[in-house]
């Protein structure tokens, strides 16, 4: 690495923006992937991977991803809940990688819930 310029400082800062927004608690969207035994058996890990992959590719910095246990609706796993700041949470069921990617693009990035995958609107939060 050669000598830094003032612009380099900004570049290094931007590269890490995502990590730090989360540490500093400044997230706009919270996505909860249900990772109970049932969720994992139904493929929740793949859904999580797809979500993290989309986040990395799109370079967004304000999406917090958490997990939760079984939500008691095991037949609809894998499930995920998306909560936008100041909006009711939306719970999605029977997910796979493609569906998660679409939810990421439409709901998380652009704010339009994907109604066809949605189970309920306005239910639980993580704790």
């Amino acid at each position, binding site marked *: *690495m*050669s*000598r*830094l*310029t*003032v612009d380099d*400082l900004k570049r*290094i*800062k931007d*590269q*890490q*923006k*995502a*990590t*730090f927004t*989360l*540490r*500093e*608690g400044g*997230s706009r969207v*919270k996505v*909860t992937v*249900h*990772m*109970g035994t049932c969720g*994992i058996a139904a493929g929740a*890990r793949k859904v*999580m*991977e797809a979500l*993290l992959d989309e*986040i*990395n590719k799109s370079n967004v910095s304000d999406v*917090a*991803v*958490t*997990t*939760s*246990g079984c939500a008691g609706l095991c037949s609809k796993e894998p499930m995920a809940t998306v909560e936008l700041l100041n909006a009711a949470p939306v719970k999605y069921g029977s997910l796979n990688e493609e569906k998660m990617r679409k939810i990421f693009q439409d709901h998380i990035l652009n704010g339009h819930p994907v109604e066809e995958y949605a189970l309920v609107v306005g239910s639980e939060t*993580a*704790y």
Partner: protein
Amino acid sequence: METYRTSVMLCGGTGCIAGGSLKLKKALDEEIKRRDLQKEVNVVLTGCNGFCAEGPVMTVYPDDIFYEKVTVADVPVIVEEHFIKGRPVGRLMYKEPVKKQTIPLMREIPFFSLQVLRALRNKGLIDAEKIDEYIARDGYQAAAKALTEMTSEQVVNEIKASGLRGRGGAGFPTGMKWEFCSKVKGEQKYILCNGDEGDPGAFMDRSVMEADPHVVLEGMIIGAKAIGANKGFIYVRAEYPLAVHRLQLAIAQAKEYGLLGNNIFGTGFNLDIEIYLGAGAFVCGEETALMRSLEGKRGMPRPRPPFPAVKGLWDCPTVLNNVETYANIPQIILNGADWYKTLGTEKSTGTKVFALSGAISNIGLIEVPMGIPLRKIIFDIGGGVPKGRKFKAVQLGGPSGGCIPEHLLDTPVTYEDIVQTGAIVGSGGMVVMNDLNCMVSVAKFFLEFTAEESCGKCPPCRVGTTLMLDLLTKITEGKGLETDIELLQDMSLDIIATSLCGLGQTAPNPVLTTIKYFRDEYESHIKEKWCKTGVCKELCTFYIDEEKCKACGACKRVCPQSAVAGEKKVAHRIDQSKCIQCRSCYEACKFDSVKIGPRSMRETVENITDQSALRDKMIETLAGKEE
């Protein structure tokens, strides 16, 4: 750049490392790998989180869940329950001591929520060993601004306007110091950082150097620009190996990025910084002694003037500031003096870091706005005095400071208000004492320290502190005379007036303040041969009030001498010939039936065998003694 969904900020401060956080880091990394989560969950070893009493501690983001006293055995549960299933582990969370309520979120725990972080703004948020993480939190932007957009005069004026005062103890306005030095002509000037931190019970500077080493470098770069220095030294005591290691790494990284060295940011400005290891002598924290020590000579103070700003290291114009002082500088340059002044009072602006220790629940490191009352620090942030004991005094400013009693706890913490009490804000050590502390012994403890650390150059300090220590020792052994209190006060004033450096000039403060606020304790030691706290072994008798005794056996169990006789349902009694005055029985008794009487009671207690006669005799003896 990978984005992790979960970041685990594991405290890697000296306290938590001693508690096993390096083993925890390894266990966490392994378990995360075993569960194939290494792309999702990241463990970062940070600097001191501050809540040392609860260590090892960690905070999990983005949820902000705080775990305490974590062990390697807890790791699989945390990974399975929290990281995979999203169910934070309740039993590892902080429990509020009064209502026993669990508080999961770090930001809601009073110890953290009442603090305001400026000097410590990166603590627990960055990996102290990665310069990029420092840069991610606006690191080196203030240095860039100072070097590329500001003149030296503008830098000086901004710091002057902020009202920042030196955090090393004396509270001298930093901007003024820089201004003096910037106006002195000289080919070679030096910028120095004081990381000697010799006060017993203080660890503010160590934590800053461990948690955020780059902020110290950045502060020094800005200072160097202000005064026109091209060479800097950080003087750190060798007993701080982790701080030294992280500073060394930071300097190497900054050099690699061209943030130290020649032509920084292409401005033609040069600065090199080196670390100098101190051998841990308290006097070497004094500015002129520190410079002699840096020159490779014996660390002894010299008279001022000339001040170091004119003639300092190798007789060149030099500025020395404290670690925490430098940690405030980048924020002031970035956000401006007016922002800085939004906290604190008119004459004491900004925030101050304190190290809480002694008889306080939340031992650790805190940063609070200046002007906050002592009571709020000790009871709201510090969680008060543990084990149901009573607050007695708080010692501020270490061996140079003084003891502040209960009735002055509403004093705001500012340079000007604390001085009124006879103590000083000092560098930030805050040692809390409870009702088990003997204030004469406390004064003696500090005098032992200063007498030992006196460099010996000037007689008032060398001879004076030793004589004062002899007097205090005499008093604690029951050989004190009634005139000794006045003698101590007289000697104190002489030592303060005639000593060469700050060490002697402040060494009598603990004695003066304990006499001022706890004179009755000195008097009962001298006149009644009675140390009411049972600390001075020659001046007390431990006995059991047999009417109050519930015969529970608690005192009997803890007595290392088997000096307590008694069975179930039979009031216990202490055999004075076996008792070594260790006070274990007194602390173990839940019914307040172990009593501490004057020395003279030992014979009384021993010669009487009849229970009721003993009690009468005790009441008689005490009636004359109690005020």
